[in-house]
């Protein structure tokens, strides 16, 4: 028997569908979506170029004949060039949080909005949410999909929402104490920020009556999960999504916390080598590419997420048959190439969390003073770490250095900095400053 940390509940029968049946459903929906986008100018041009018609999609393997869609394509068709329905059918517009440049917009019909709420409800239920619970949402509300996506997901389950949004951490802590919500929803870095802030203000964060947390919208590590779980005394679940595809709800963990179930009745996921664009083997890391099967307003074919993760096709002990995806290890565009070695910021974080006395508050600075890349990692010193003895401080610095070298294979310059000097994130944390002039 699998060891369930929370009650194992499944919302929809599609989540446990036999694989053959799922593939048949996916093919039917793929044929439909190809027909729906045939008049979107971007796809119309691409289909004409490649000689693609909806009738030519005869099996799921034909997916590979379809064109990719990139973030850049969305930007070039700003604001709503990918719209596949008449404008009057738009029920909501969201956008990317703009982490990597110009805003991109996504539209939803009423049906899309319902689909989205249901997808969020699926992973919330998978993580133990019940109608009698109160959910504290500390995601940004606004054009970013996190706040509203989870909000309507919680309401779909029938639970109560405390829509606090992010920021004003003192008030978050007051309500975590006074209203005793059961579930916390925010970015993982903000969850740690709340715990830190509470402790600095004399409140022990593990005394909050919280039971579970659903965290997403930025990559995080298993070590960070353990830290959040012990700091806040909760079970922490990972979920994944991106606004271009639908927002949160593309995939999420079940009670077994062993990979995120991709909602394959709504999305086809591929895992490709980011350079050759050929599929990688099961369990190998590659770039995730999603095709939306059911979206009406703005369906996308083979959207390149730039997110690096691995897929596990095995059925899960929870009963779901859907493919699971690993944590996002990094982004193919956040990936730093340092002296020819691929380094992901998440690896630095993993290293810091393994060194006793180090904190997960860090900033990576990349420079190229001459011809050689240099990477410096600034790590904040907290009272628990600090010693009056120089030898202790140097030992800590060396331990961080060795750990990073063991994980990334490169030597970095570790700099200890004063507390609270690294900017805290309310949303997605900024972890990398690249000062190299790579175009000059």
């Amino acid at each position, binding site marked *: 028997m699998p060891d369930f940390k929370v009650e194992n509940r499944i919302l929809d029968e599609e989540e446990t569908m036999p694989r053959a049946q799922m593939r048949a459903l996916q093919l039917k929906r793929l044929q439909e979506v190809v027909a729906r986008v045939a008049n979107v100018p971007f796809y119309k041009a691409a289909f004409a170029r490649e000689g693609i018609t909806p009738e030519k999609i005869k099996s799921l393997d034909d997916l590979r004949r379809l064109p990719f869609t990139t973030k850049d394509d969305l930007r070039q068709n700003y604001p709503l060039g990918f719209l596949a329905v008449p404008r009057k059918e738009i029920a909501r517009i969201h956008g990317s949080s703009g982490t990597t440049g110009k805003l991109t917009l996504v539209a939803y019909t009423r049906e899309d909005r319902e689909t989205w709420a249901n997808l969020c409800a699926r992973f919330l239920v998978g993580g133990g949410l019940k109608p009698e619970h109160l959910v504290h949402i500390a995601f940004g509300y606004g054009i970013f999909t996190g706040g509203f996506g989870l909000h309507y997901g919680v309401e779909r389950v029938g639970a109560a929402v405390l829509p606090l949004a992010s920021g004003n951490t003192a008030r978050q802590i007051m309500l975590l104490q006074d209203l005793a919500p059961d579930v916390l929803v925010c970015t993982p870095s903000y969850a740690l920020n709340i715990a830190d802030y509470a402790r600095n203000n004399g409140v022990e964060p593990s005394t909050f009556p919280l039971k579970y947390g659903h965290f997403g919208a930025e990559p995080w590590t298993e070590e960070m999960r353990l830290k959040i779980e012990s700091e806040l005394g909760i079970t922490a679940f990972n979920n994944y999504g991106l606004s271009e595809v639908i927002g949160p709800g593309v995939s999420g963990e079940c009670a077994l916390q062993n990979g995120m179930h991709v909602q394959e009745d709504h999305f086809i996921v591929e895992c490709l080598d980011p350079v050759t664009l050929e599929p990688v083997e099961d369990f190998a890391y590659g770039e995730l590419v999603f095709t939306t099967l059911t979206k009406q307003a703005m369906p996308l074919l083979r959207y390149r997420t730039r997110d690096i993760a691995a897929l596990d096709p095995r059925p899960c002990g929870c009963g779901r048959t859907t493919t699971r995806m690993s944590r996002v290890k990094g982004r193919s565009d956040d990936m730093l190439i340092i002296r020819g070695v691929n380094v992901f910021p998440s690896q630095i974080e993993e290293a810091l969390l393994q060194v006793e006395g180090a904190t997960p508050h860090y900033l990576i600075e990349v420079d190229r003073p001459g011809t050689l890349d240099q990477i410096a990692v600034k790590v904040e010193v907290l009272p628990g770490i600090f010693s009056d003895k*120089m030898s202790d401080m140097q030992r800590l610095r060396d331990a961080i250095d060795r750990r990073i070298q063991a994980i990334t294979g490169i030597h970095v310059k570790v700099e200890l900095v004063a507390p609270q000097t690294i900017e805290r994130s309310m949303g997605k944390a900024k972890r990398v400053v690249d000062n190299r002039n790579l175009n000059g």
Partner: protein
Amino acid sequence: MKIHQLSLFLENKPGRLSEPCQALASEGINILTLSLADTQQFGILRIIVRDWEKARDVLSKMGCVVNITEVVATEVEDRPGGLAEILKVIEAGGINIEYMYAFTFRYGDKAVLVFRFNDPDAALKVLQAKGINVIGPVELYERMRS
């Protein structure tokens, strides 16, 4: 007999030393002595003040990382060989000195040194057994006043 020492983490950047000193000054706290250990990137400032608890609160409030350590102050004859004699006693006792520095004031023909031992209690025993005058906080602050 031990004395409380405050240590602060400082980034090695212009202005980082004056900020805590200014904060203590505006609270009327006098720094009796200090020592600064530095590397290229950061430094550790160690200070001794009379009201260490107040100083700790002032510095913590301004966001400094403050650590409290117990150190030992001893009298040393201010003549050639004065320090060497004490060090010989410490060495013979198997006690390790992490670092040391001096007070700026003199008392008669004696200087006062601050030792940070790895094991202050063991060090106290060794020093007292050899008749070396260890100065406790009460006596120390009394002398500062005179």
